[in-house]
């Protein structure tokens, strides 16, 4: 009898231990000390959100976080997003699609914004955060293409405006005896002049999910349409990229394995004379290669036209969030002048709001070139479809096959058009 009682006690203990092991899991988020004044006036409960961020590895993240908490009045717990783009997208897709409420605000890129904006996973912000006076300060075309759903809801606050700009190595430009790259002819001449001794005139990141940016850029420059592969401009663009790699050999076919990290390392090491790259040159600054006499951004050349892509990472509100009131407070801060300026000051992100970009605190060579680009280029959001990554990956695979002579130009264009029809 005693033995039986002991056994039952053991079973009960085992069950209790097991069940207790199923609860109270630490989320792994990082809690910073809240600043004063972060209380919800209605309930007396402290305002608190969890932010899923890509900036946590930035050395100035702590300063940005403290400022955001102080100015927004919200305690911000944060979770670091994976640095690998595929992993990051998979995690964010899983969080949003599963109704996970452990994260309130997420930073998402254009690919994710396009995919998620009609899925009903993100709360509309036009009534609470992005009122008309604020929205009109953001780039209108970008807001409509990337952040506005079919129902007309605006689902994100752009944290900055970036361009997929042309970065050149000034020393190589000087060595080629050129002052600038203004036309298609200049572009080709510079590539040819800079290709020697194992160095190339142009560098790309042609990994199948990254090459999309460059294909679309050349399509734009040649006046084509990424969704129309019968368009002569689109065909010219893809043929131009083929010629760069195979006819003129001014860029290596090897780069079809490269993402930005490999491309940038080669550019920094002097293996490339120019690249298309996002951002304000932080990688080059860290490598002491940034400057008007070294690597810097120049205006886009005119092929059929001058055209450039803009992008952003946007703050979005998870529909499943349990802290929407606090999240909206944070988003108001992020969409406001202080939030945008803090992004510029701490992360070097160019403000997305026109009125903030014109602020005297925003200055330097980036502002000069951005202003020139805005004055002279057609500015577009990138061409994306709802099944964004699937479409991008399929186009990238086709491109890699074409570049490696596994299909002809006509076959590429036919299959590319089929992919457009399939995913549109």
């Amino acid at each position, binding site marked *: 009898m005693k033995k*039986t009682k002991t*056994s*039952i006690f*053991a*079973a009960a203990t*085992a*069950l209790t231990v*097991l*069940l207790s092991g199923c609860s109270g899991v630490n989320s792994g988020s990082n809690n910073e000390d809240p600043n004063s004044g972060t209380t919800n006036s209605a309930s007396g409960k402290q305002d608190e959100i969890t932010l899923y961020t890509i900036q946590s590895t930035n050395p100035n993240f702590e300063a940005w976080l403290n400022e955001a908490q102080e100015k927004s009045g919200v305690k911000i717990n944060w979770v670091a997003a994976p640095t*690998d783009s*595929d992993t990051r*997208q*998979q995690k964010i*897709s*899983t969080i949003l*699609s599963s109704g996970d409420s452990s994260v309130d605000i997420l930073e998402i890129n254009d690919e994710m914004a396009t*995919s*998620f904006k*009609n*899925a*009903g996973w993100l709360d509309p912000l036009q009534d609470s955060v992005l009122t008309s006076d604020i929205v009109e300060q953001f780039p209108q075309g970008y807001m409509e293409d990337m952040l506005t759903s079919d129902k007309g809801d605006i689902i994100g606050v752009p944290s900055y405006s970036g361009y997929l700009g042309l970065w050149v190595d000034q020393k190589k430009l000087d060595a080629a005896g050129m002052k600038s790259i203004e036309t298609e002819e200049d572009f080709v001449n510079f590539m040819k002049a800079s290709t020697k001794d194992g160095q190339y005139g142009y560098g790309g990141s042609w*990994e*199948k*999910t990254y090459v999309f940016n460059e294909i679309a850029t050349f399509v734009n420059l040649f006046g084509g349409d990424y969704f129309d592969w019968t368009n002569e401009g689109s065909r010219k663009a893809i043929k131009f990229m083929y010629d760069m790699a195979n006819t003129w050999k001014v860029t*290596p*076919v*090897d780069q*079809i*394995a490269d993402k930005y990290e*490999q491309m940038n*390392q*080669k550019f920094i090491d002097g*293996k490339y004379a120019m690249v298309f790259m996002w951002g304000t040159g932080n990688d080059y600054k860290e490598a002491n290669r940034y400057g008007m006499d070294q690597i810097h951004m120049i205006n886009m050349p005119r092929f059929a036209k001058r055209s450039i892509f803009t992008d952003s990472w946007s703050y979005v509100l998870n529909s499943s969030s349990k802290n929407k009131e606090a999240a909206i407070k944070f988003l108001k801060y992020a969409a406001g002048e202080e939030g945008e300026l803090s992004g510029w000051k701490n992360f070097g992100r160019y403000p997305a709001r026109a009125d903030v970009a014109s602020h005297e605190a925003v200055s330097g060579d980036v502002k000069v070139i951005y202003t020139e680009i805005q004055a002279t280029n057609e500015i577009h959001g990138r061409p994306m479809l*709802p*099944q964004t*990554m*699937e479409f991008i*990956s399929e186009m990238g*695979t086709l491109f*890699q*096959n074409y570049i*490696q002579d596994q299909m002809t130009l006509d076959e590429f264009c036919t299959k590319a058009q089929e992919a457009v029809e399939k995913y549109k």
Partner: protein
Amino acid sequence: MYENKKYITIAWILVLPALLIRVFTTIYPIIETFRISLYDVKLLRGINEFVGFQNYLNIFQDSKMIASINFTVIFVVGSMIGHIVLGIALALILNMKFAGQKVLRTIVLLPWAMPMVVIAMASKWAFNNEYGLVNDFIRWFNPSFHLDWLIHATTASHAVIAVDLWKDLPFFAILILAGLQFISSDMYEAAKIDGAGVIRSFFTITLPLISKNILVLSIFFTMWRITSFDVVYAMTSGGPGESTALIAYRITTEAFTNLNTGYASSIAVVLFLVMALLSALSMRAAKRVDY
């Protein structure tokens, strides 16, 4: 009799928590995966329609999936041949008596102790034409050698198999070594007296006596290879094109990147059935081999 029943009841109560957890974490997901596989679920488009076995039919008409199946077969066969041949060779070397034998045995296991994702990310650089240590090594002997391994389907496949071997071969060898150490040295001495050389001793004594070890290890290593995912995820992203996309990688991509949950589930069910079938066949074969 009564006591027996009581103890059985208590035994069931004791294992019940574990059983419940098992049902929740294994049986339920399997049933749910099969159910979802009968639907066309595209989360991004809000589609969720019952399509019967259409997803299963699509698997064999999808060129990406066929490429994945082809590469998975090449990867599993290539890697397993490498494991068996090189694993036995390495085990024989480690079984020899020489100074520093223990140190070598420890060092050999180091790659196995490293996470595959770390190895694969490092390998992406290692196989780079400009910066990679693989080409750097080859250039000691052939200074003009240039090859970016990961941009051609064939060389990328070889690189992926090589990395997989580099990581897990030592573990395979150490387990074979454990089998070798059970073989009595008397048998080799007797064979030597009978005039058998080293090669004959290997084929008539060593190999038959470790064959069951090899078979059992091969079963598990084959299963792990079939469900491998991390090596291509971090090293090639399934490229160039789709040429190194293993089936498990394809499932992950369809499920978590493309959010085609129904289609991903149907591939997962097929993979599950293949694994179950192979396991049954292998276990039966293992029972029959007895020296």
